[in-house]
């Protein structure tokens, strides 16, 4: 038996099919992954993401520590609650994990602190790496928050339905949140972030409040959704999945994460900077692209991608896109790849289009 989130009984009550996910018993779907996917694109769905790891970073050196630990620069966070997506790299520039970091206080005040959310499957190595990386700082404390549940509510109706399921002051806060901002209200941390390409919220709350809130969301008309739909939604949105689209052996420059590296200011020393700079000067030989297959079939991770006259690559994540009605994938291919390729599907070479890795945003197709 795996770890159980505070919502385990709710999942069973609502008919979830539970599977092991990084040591946790998590819902993969509640009947139909495709139906849940459509609910999120068209209305609102909710996901239990309590298995994810929350770490608070405090102490007078918290900010300087994170500016050293992360490839993106937390000095960009200039408003209370603002969030930043970043890779956490090793010295070779490989991606240890990807994460979200929130500035929990007003910027620049004393006592400035941050909240980080990292992946569940990478929890132990992340915590070890983060802890080891504090060595050259005098005052940094890392405090994991294992007692927080986390619920993501996503979709065009997510905000309006979530407001019906919370207290007036929390509803008021939700109304004021800007995109990519999280703030606290009556002990809950409410963020306007997500992993689906839709508007929505991610709410961290004490475990004892979770089941009641989940039920209130269901009563308001938010559909429970499993990790299956979460994966097809994030892939349509072109968002990387750690362990599939990148890992420690992959440079962020070859994982469509170049935009998350803050090269300026030049004198900021962050872990992996030197290696990345060398890679950038030498030229990166691979890139992460999107594939669209118009013929029947489904693209899958690890299928071979053949680019005539250029070379070969590999699908890192593939699926059937419920929104588009065809197969889509992310693939790592030679940098010289243009706008077409072929994928080897059980011995047959099937033509695919090569696009920027983003397929669907806010319910609609985003490529030509």
């Amino acid at each position, binding site marked *: 038996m795996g770890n159980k989130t505070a919502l385990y009984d709710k999942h069973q009550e609502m008919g979830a099919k539970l599977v092991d996910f990084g040591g946790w018993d998590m819902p993969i779907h509640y009947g139909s*992954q*495709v139906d849940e996917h459509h609910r999120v694109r068209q209305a609102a769905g909710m996901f239990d993401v309590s298995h994810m790891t929350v770490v608070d970073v405090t102490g007078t050196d918290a900010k300087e520590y994170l500016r050293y630990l992360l490839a993106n620069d937390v000095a960009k966070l200039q408003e209370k609650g603002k969030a930043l997506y970043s890779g956490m790299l090793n010295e070779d520039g490989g991606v240890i994990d990807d994460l979200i970091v929130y500035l929990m206080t007003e910027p620049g005040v004393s006592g400035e602190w941050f909240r980080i959310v990292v992946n569940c499957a990478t929890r132990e190595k992340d915590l070890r790496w983060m802890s080891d990386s504090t060595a050259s700082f005098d005052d940094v404390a890392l405090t994991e928050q294992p007692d927080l549940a986390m619920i993501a509510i996503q979709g065009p109706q997510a905000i309006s339905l979530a407001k019906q399921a919370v207290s007036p002051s929390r509803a008021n806060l939700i109304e004021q949140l800007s995109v990519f901002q999280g703030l606290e209200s009556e002990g809950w941390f409410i963020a306007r972030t997500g992993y689906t390409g839709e508007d929505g919220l991610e709410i961290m709350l004490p475990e004892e409040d979770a089941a009641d809130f989940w039920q209130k969301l269901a009563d308001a008309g938010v559909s429970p959704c499993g990790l*299956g739909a979460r994966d097809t939604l994030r892939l349509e949105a072109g968002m990387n999945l750690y362990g599939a689209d990148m890992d420690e052996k992959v440079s962020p420059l070859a994982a469509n994460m170049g935009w998350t590296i803050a090269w300026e200011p030049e004198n900021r020393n962050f872990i992996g900077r030197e290696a990345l700079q060398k890679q950038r000067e030498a030229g990166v030989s691979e890139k992460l692209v999107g594939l669209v297959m118009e013929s*029947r*079939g*489904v693209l899958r991770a690890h299928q071979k991608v053949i680019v005539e006259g250029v070379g070969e690559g590999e699908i890192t994540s593939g699926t*059937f896109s419920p929104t588009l009605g065809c197969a889509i994938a992310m693939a790592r291919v030679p940098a010289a790849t243009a706008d077409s390729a072929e994928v080897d599907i*059980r011995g047959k070479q099937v033509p695919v289009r090569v696009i920027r890795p983003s397929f669907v945003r806010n319910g609609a197709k985003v490529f030509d």
Partner: protein
Amino acid sequence: MSNIPSELKYVASHEWIRVEGDGTVTIGVTDHAQDLLGDVVFVELPEVGSEVATGDESGVVESVKAASDVYAPLSGEVVAINEELEDSPELVNSDPYGDGWFFKLKLSDSDELNELLDAEAYNDLCESEA
């Protein structure tokens, strides 16, 4: 527990067989199989008129989660395929023993029917795999 109708026959690769009594059989995948597959998004079927032998790969079911081969549970000629599945592959999930059927075979050797599992034996097999 999955639905295993007692009037059908089964094979260990999770296809069901309905003996029609006129030398033909109808074939599909079981409720247990569709449940394992999850949402079915494509079904590839053999061509009408083609000959298949027991154990041949004679189709593919693709769900969001995985691709899975469909094996011919008996030998014979394919006399019909379920064309509805092209536009509505989800019938495999919603009605695996009815509208979600795959293809019909005209048997070349009716003795092969004796090799099939009955509902009880198939149920035991599913439980032992669980």
